[in-house]
């Protein structure tokens, strides 16, 4: 009996690596600390009522951001471990299997569990405020999306200590990811972690499309929407078209592994190339899904800190929409080397290049927003300014990669690695950082410390170039991606060492950001104006942080950047627009179902991963029960009385 238990445990838990034992101890200690702290301060009820069951988009947004930053930490540690291993030739810091697991989890976490939730966090924090809405279209679904993402991410991360991590690359190409070549459970953790959070992403896409199309405040015509709202709309449209393909692809891979089907296997008539096509039909739009909102953020930031209208609004909208459409016609550029023939390659090369046109136009429009403006450079604007050169160079190397015959020499090399990190860090990460710094005072009611922020910015920026510029040359020197080590004879060591130093500079930059947040929580002054940057859009017209109902009365909008125009009118002696009479506000009630249902999904996923039907079936039954419970519940909303609105507004210093 005891031996059986021991056997089971040694298979079940990942063993044998001191790094992992260290992590085990850290995880257990952190959990014990959190649980004891909550118990000691009697915060369990507070946690449940205010956070875990909340349907308030602002709180959900905060939870997304926290989770994303934690994932950024883990993905970043993965990156630094890899850079350490590659710093010197023939290093035995990580063995090949461990290295393979680390680059896989790094990729998955950074795209799916860091960039996506950070993006959703910003959608949640900003969109309803920007369009003058009280909440998103489906607050319950919004909470469910978050918890599905969270449980999916937890399931994926669990593979670190239980069962073993996936190790077949972030897109898990078959036949390598099939049972024949990856018999372990790591690959199943990959499938279920992404699948569960993917359902959440799909629902968020639907939610925000309806929110933007249906819940804008009176007078806000589509062509008067702020640019971030437009970018969210284009990103969400791309989500709803792309994510079902991911769901199908992963489901087919799972059916292969679990039921012995032959979609992508080598035998039985399977076709691995089909997986590669399918996964990139999602995967390519996915990178545009994460970068489009960053474009939106830059558009807001650049207009605010130039104190000027965004240049070329219609061009910008058209560019966003055409990018999201075109992103569906470029997927095959990820495998020009598959030998599909000259015509196919030429087609996808040209479609890829075409995307550069609207992207280039956006850059010009941002530059001419600054032209004849009154520029100031607080941290959000600094990230904007750091973004332009970085993204322009990354975009240019992207065009180089799109030239199919030249790509034969770039493909799968460090040139490619450098390119996509340049657009994903320089575009997406810098963009989301800009967004976080910009909207932070709106969310928490105080600005982040500028001095520490500037340190973080320069460390990230310099670190970025030191890390990734050498990688372009490493690629041209023939260094291929995913190599766990290399010989002294290759002549790659100087540049690899430089690159590692750059990686650690970015790591220090991240530490500065953590310090900046902690420092600012303690020392920064509260912003009582609600409009610390002299902003342009509606979110700056209400107190910071926004009251739970956002707008005491819905604003009536007549122009783009209505809040800015209103301020101009008042400055010229005009009267503020009249406010309608206060009325009770209709609000959704909190619900525990989303978190419980997502936990059931987690249980079901875990059961399928280990092929434990006794666990998977109750999990699925739990999911169904939660859905029914929600369907039968007709008591889902309430009204905030006028008296309470008056009290809240007065406390925020607003006269009604």
């Amino acid at each position: 009996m005891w031996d059986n238990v021991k056997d089971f445990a040694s298979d079940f838990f990942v063993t044998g690596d001191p790094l992992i034992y260290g992590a085990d101890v850290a995880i257990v200690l952190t959990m014990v600390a959190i649980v004891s702290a909550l118990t000691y301060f009697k915060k369990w009820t507070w946690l449940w009522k205010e956070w875990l069951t909340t349907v308030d988009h602002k709180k959900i947004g905060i939870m997304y951001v926290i989770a994303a930053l934690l994932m950024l930490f883990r993905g970043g540690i993965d990156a630094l471990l890899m850079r350490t291993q590659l710093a010197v030739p023939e290093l035995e810091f990580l063995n090949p299997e461990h290295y393979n697991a680390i680059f896989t989890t790094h990729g998955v976490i950074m795209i799916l569990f860091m960039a996506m939730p950070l993006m959703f966090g910003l959608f949640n924090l900003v969109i309803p405020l920007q369009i003058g809405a009280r909440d998103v279209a489906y607050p319950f679904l919004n909470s469910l999306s978050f918890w599905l993402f969270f449980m999916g991410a937890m399931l994926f991360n669990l593979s670190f200590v239980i069962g073993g991590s996936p190790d077949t690359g972030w897109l898990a190409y078959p036949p390598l990811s099939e049972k024949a070549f990856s018999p372990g459970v790591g690959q199943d953790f990959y499938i279920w972690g992404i699948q569960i959070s993917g359902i959440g992403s799909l629902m968020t896409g639907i939610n925000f499309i309806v929110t933007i199309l249906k819940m804008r405040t009176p007078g806000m015509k589509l062509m008067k929407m702020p640019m971030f709202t437009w970018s969210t709309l284009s990103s969400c449209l791309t989500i709803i078209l792309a994510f079902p393909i991911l769901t199908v692809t992963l489901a087919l891979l799972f059916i292969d592994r679990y039921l012995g089907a032959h979609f992508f296997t080598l035998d039985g008539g399977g076709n691995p190339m089909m997986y590669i096509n399918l996964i990139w039909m999602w995967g390519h739009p996915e990178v545009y899904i994460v970068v489009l909102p960053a474009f939106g953020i830059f558009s807001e930031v650049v207009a605010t800190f130039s104190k000027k209208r965004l240049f070329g609004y219609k061009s910008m909208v058209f560019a966003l929409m055409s990018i999201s459409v075109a992103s569906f016609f470029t997927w095959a550029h990820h495998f020009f080397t598959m030998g599909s023939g000259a015509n196919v390659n030429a087609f996808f090369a040209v479609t890829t290049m075409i995307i550069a046109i609207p992207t280039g136009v956006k850059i010009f429009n941002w530059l001419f927003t600054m032209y004849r403006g009154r520029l100031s450079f607080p941290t959000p604007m600094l990230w904007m300014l750091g973004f332009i050169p970085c993204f322009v160079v990354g975009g240019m190397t992207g065009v180089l990669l799109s030239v199919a015959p030249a790509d034969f020499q770039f493909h799968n090399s460090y040139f490619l690695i450098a390119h996509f990190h340049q657009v994903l860090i320089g575009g997406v990460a810098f963009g989301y950082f800009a967004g976080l710094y910009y909207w932070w005072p709106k969310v928490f009611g105080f600005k982040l410390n500028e001095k520490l922020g500037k340190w973080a910015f320069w460390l990230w920026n310099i670190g970025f170039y030191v890390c990734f510029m050498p990688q372009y040359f490493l690629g041209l020197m023939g260094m291929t991606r995913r190599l766990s080590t290399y010989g002294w004879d290759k002549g790659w060591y100087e540049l690899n060492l430089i690159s590692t130093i750059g990686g650690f500079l970015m790591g220090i930059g991240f530490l500065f950001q953590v310090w900046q947040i902690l420092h600012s929580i303690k020392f920064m002054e509260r912003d009582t104006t609600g409009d610390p940057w002299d902003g342009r859009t509606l979110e700056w017209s209400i107190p910071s942080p926004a009251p739970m109902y956002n707008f005491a009365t819905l604003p009536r909008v007549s122009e783009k950047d209505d809040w800015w125009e209103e301020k101009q009118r008042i400055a010229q002696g005009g009267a503020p627009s009249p406010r309608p009479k206060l009325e009770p506000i209709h609000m959704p009630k909190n619900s525990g179902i989303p978190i419980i249902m997502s936990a059931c999904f987690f249980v079901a996923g875990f059961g399928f991963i280990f092929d434990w039907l006794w666990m998977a079936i109750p999990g699925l039954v739990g999911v169904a029960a939660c859905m029914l419970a929600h369907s039968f519940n007709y008591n889902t909303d309430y009204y905030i009385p006028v008296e309470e609105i008056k009290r809240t507004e007065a406390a925020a210093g607003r006269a009604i």
Partner: protein
Amino acid sequence: MMKRLRRLTAVLSLIAMTIMMTGCTDKIVVLNPKGEIGKHQLDLIIISSVLCLVVLVPVLILAFYIAWKYKHRPGKDTKYSPKWEHSTKLETIWWGIPIVVIAILGIITVKYTHMLEPSKPLKHEAKPLVIEVTSLDWKWLFQYPEQGIATVNYVEFPANVPIEFRLTSDAPMNSFWIPQLGGQIYTMSGMAMKLHLIADEPGSYMGSGANFSGKDFGKMQFTANATSQEEFDGWVQQIKGSSPALTTEGYLQLAEPGVSDLQSFSSIPEGLFQKIVTKYSSGHNHGSASEQADSKE
């Protein structure tokens, strides 16, 4: 001022690094091709880079100039037009420039894509040498059907003779890449891909498996030796004289997952390569194994 200085140092150090790099181009194999295909690909890389730089450099200069010029300081009197948000003329210009650049690049790309299609035989008076390449877990098998020999993890061929690589895989997909001779192509099971390359001068060139294929994927490096025709013939005779034969059982053993040193074989089983390809053919009713292989040709 401080900030601008810091930005300047960052840019300068980048430029310095670039110059330092170009000082030792022979290490940068892609920029130092030794074969016709690689040279064409380098031409294409240079053409596309120049075309992109035409847009890139002005944009970067403009970005920093505008940021510097319009930075607001008390007492500074630059033009301020807060309501200026549209100019048909300007926007036409910057829709126009990228469209023109991309159109030019697109035309060049389409032309080169057809010219450098890997399955297209090279125009050359010499008859091409056929080498059959199989990626295994985690080693490369090279068979010479005309010479009847095989090698593992190194490949020899005469310079100035076109080489017709036929490629497949008996393991998860990999990618065959000899940077100095020209770009790569995937090796996929159930298919025989073709890649035509040529070495313009004798030399020892780095080759690698560029697509991740599992645990010891990093060990799938090989050397491609281009020699004179005489040396090549001598080498074939030497292999035939001194190396063991590759049997069908021997192949199965070789195909087992694991790494391998350099090996050579004096003979190969009849039709081994074709067998490896058909083994994974998707088994249409109408036996389309050869169809699949053929369709790639």
